């Protein structure tokens, strides 16, 4: 019984293989199209990621050869590293808040800007993209949130009598998380935003005319029934960019709130990773942290993808 089942399974597998082979031969030219990208991608993106995941199962201090230690890094992360759990919590809070809000803002602003005439639109896009194009631009927030009475925010709030004494926005654990959320949101008009701008211009204009005939009354109906269903691809792209940006917050917290921040109040996974990788030279451990972040992001992407495919239906 088992033997026949197995042979049937084997025959089926062989048939599938033969089918795939013939399919592959039929599409020979397409493999040639893909080849240059696949080669470079394999060597400089895929291989480094693979090697990093391998390192996560080793003790690797960058100087000595890596030593295989199985799941020890992962066990230590969850059972022996209190700070990691804080970092995980902070990262999830940041991602859950800044991810969706940043994503929706990016789309709405792109949609609003798309209404403007050509050259004005290009300029306004630049203005809104400025936080991303001008490198470490978020450092200007340090001026606003300075803890003495000369900091912009403190000065304004004191002048209007809302607070009596200057607040330590960047060192008081009560304020740090909201401050970082504001800064991250401010930076969220990035790659996804530009993709939306480009995507809005590729939508077939005749669809809007057809919509007008069918009785679409205002711009919001137009958005929901015509624009969004025709932008599924860009919405997915924007979502992946938003996931990347909201889970990988690290530079901002490090530069604004200090490294480490007070009581680890805004210590994120990326901060934790840089701590172990660049300061303690425990690259194996850092790789394990990166791998956990990676898996979290993949699951989020799958979840978000399911949600996006329902838009407009």
């Amino acid at each position, binding site marked *: 019984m088992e033997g026949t089942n197995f042979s049937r399974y084997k025959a089926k597998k062989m048939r599938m293989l033969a089918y795939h082979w013939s399919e592959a031969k039929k599409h020979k030219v397409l493999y040639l199209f893909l080849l240059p*990208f696949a080669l470079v991608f394999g060597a400089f993106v895929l291989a480094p990621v693979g090697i990093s995941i391998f390192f996560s199962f080793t003790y690797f201090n960058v100087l000595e050869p890596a030593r295989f230690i199985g799941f020890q890094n992962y066990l230590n992360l969850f059972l022996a590293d209190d700070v990691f759990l804080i970092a995980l919590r902070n990262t999830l809070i940041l991602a859950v808040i800044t991810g969706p809000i940043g994503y929706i803002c990016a789309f709405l602003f792109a949609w609003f800007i798309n209404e403007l005439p050509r050259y004005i639109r290009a300029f306004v896009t630049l203005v809104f993209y400025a936080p991303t194009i001008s490198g470490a631009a978020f450092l200007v927030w340090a001026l606003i949130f300075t803890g003495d009475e000369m900091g912009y925010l403190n000065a304004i709030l004191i002048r209007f009598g809302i607070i009596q004494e200057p607040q330590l926005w960047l060192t008081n654990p009560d304020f740090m998380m909201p401050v970082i959320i504001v800064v991250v949101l401010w930076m969220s008009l990035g790659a996804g935003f530009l993709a939306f701008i480009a995507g809005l211009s590729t939508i077939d204009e005749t669809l809007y005319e057809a919509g007008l005939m069918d009785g679409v009354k205002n711009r919001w109906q137009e958005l929901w029934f015509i624009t969004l269903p025709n932008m599924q691809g860009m919405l997915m792209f924007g979502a992946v960019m938003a996931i990347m940006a909201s*889970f990988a917050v690290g530079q901002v917290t490090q530069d604004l709130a200090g490294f480490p921040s007070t009581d680890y109040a805004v210590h994120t996974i990326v901060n934790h990773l840089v701590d172990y990788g660049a300061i303690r030279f425990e690259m194996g451990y*850092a790789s394990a942290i990166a791998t956990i972040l990676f898996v979290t992001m993949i699951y989020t992407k799958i979840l978000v993808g399911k949600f996006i495919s329902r838009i407009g239906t």
Partner: protein
Amino acid sequence: MTKVMGKTSLRQGEITQRAKRKRVNRNVRRPNRSLSGDIFIVFLLCVFGFFFAFPLIFAINHAFKPMNELFMFPPRLFVINPTMNNLSDLFILMSRSWVTFSRYVFNTVFITFVGTVGHLMVASMGAYAVSKYTFPGSKAFFNLVIITLMFSGFVTAIPNFLILAQLGWIDTFWAVIIPSFAFPMGFFLLKQFIDTVPMSLVESAKIDGAGEWRIYTRIVMPLVKPAMLTAMIFSVQGLWNNPQANLIYTEQLKTLPFALQQIVGSPHTPNIARAGVGAAVAMVMMIVPIILFIVAQSNILSTMANSGIKE
């Protein structure tokens, strides 16, 4: 009345249709737009615009501040006595360096240009194949590209260095240029846009006797021009200030950001005595990406090329 108008209204319909086309091209008011809504949008964009333009305004003002204003306490956003000294100091400094300034500019422009052109070609070819056809491995490959996008770049820096060292590319332009070809974000973006090109268009071209290469260059590429321009912005932005250029340490081959960093320090390790020059550098380094950005953005137009084709 309507009976009489019967014939002419058809004509008129045609004319309004044409007028509508023109209107769309010139980006004048579309139907379904209320005036109050338009005003609200302009108002919203103005309010938030200042908020987002803050770093640009700051960088430009900072570059023209004299020394006493740069270190003024409390700090001011706008410059009071603008000076050109920072910029002229920068040019004097650069004209004195033993590797000429133009050499650094050439290095940066060369890396950015070759990297971007290569990336756009390689990524769009791959994206075309994966997007328009399903063949064994195509879906898996695409998923792999998206997934690897999410892995922390900090950790992969070491394996990346080891691979480049094995290839012997450390301290050459190729260490920066070749890896940038496979920038996964550009591939992902282009694939999503090529998905919107109707397959019927590809098939009808094939019936007319066009090969894959011809379809790719003549039909698909012009239709995804907005995506190509956007991918170009990402690529230029990534390469112009590419941190991976620290794998190049021969002085004559260094890129502009790293050459300038030696003079003024990085944002994290500023050189106090040259804070003015540093502010000028921050502004000068933004000029090229910003010009390219504006040119690219103003060329993102409704192509209307795929209107009238229904799946």
